[in-house]
């Protein structure tokens, strides 16, 4: 049997694997200010898409002689500084922040704490 191993120290809760998993064996949902990603312990699908698309290389496969239990990883969602709604995993934003600062050569990345709607409103309020 093929065991699916996810490294919870690397996984930051993006949507790549769950988007790629067409049989929806890896499932993502959001509830109570958290994102929950469920991974099977063993996967019988003839496919390695999740492993290929994972930006953190957190997924691997290994041979196992028994069925393993799946596990659900929980990621706290950041609440928007403006409207208070939960929007993106804290771990994703923490990973992005230094890369965005480096790409733009600026320390000003205040939008990272805003949800999409509030970013659009900020963009317009700056114009008018």
């Amino acid at each position, binding site marked *: 049997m093929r065991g699916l191993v996810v490294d919870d120290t690397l996984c930051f809760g993006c949507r790549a694997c769950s*988007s790629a998993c067409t049989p929806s064996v890896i499932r993502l949902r959001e509830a109570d200010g958290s994102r929950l990603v469920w991974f099977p312990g063993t996967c019988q699908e003839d496919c390695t898409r999740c492993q290929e698309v994972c930006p953190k290389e957190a997924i691997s496969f290994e041979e196992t002689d028994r069925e393993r239990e799946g596990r659900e990883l929980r990621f706290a969602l950041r609440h928007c500084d403006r409207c208070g709604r939960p929007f993106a995993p804290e771990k994703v934003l923490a990973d992005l922040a230094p890369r965005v600062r480096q*790409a733009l050569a600026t320390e000003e990345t205040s939008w990272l704490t805003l949800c999409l709607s*509030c970013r659009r409103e900020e963009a317009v309020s700056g114009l008018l």
Partner: protein
Amino acid sequence: MGREVLLRPERCILCLACEVACAREHGSQERIWVIHHNGHGAPVSCRQCQTAPCVAVCPPQALEQRNGSVVLVAEKCTGCELCLWACPFGAMVLDTERGQAYKCDLCSSRQEEGLEPACVLTCPSQALVLNCVADFAARRRDVAGRAWAAGWTRRGR
């Protein structure tokens, strides 16, 4: 430099025609949003950043700078959603059904046929225009200079 959809926010009458035209052009997935602010407002869409955070963070390099615009190569997109959170303007969206992001594509298929982007064609007050940044800026300076000069004349100096 390529042409972009550029905005004259003072001309926007909040009619939502751009949003509707965009949705019609892209199968109900609009990529421009009219945002209200203190009784005024303006549309927001991808600004085709020259130094684009979405391009910098995209793991499969599905986002590319091409001739002054930011292009999403849908076949490469893994739907990880990082571009959504990197964009300062909330201009990227995720299609959760297909597991792929989408953004303003400047109506590239229309432009190949020599047609303007749907939002630009539809905008009744010409708040949205298709132009290159240098020409647009020159035109804006000209308009601002004339307005200032007209006020100067009226003040009788």
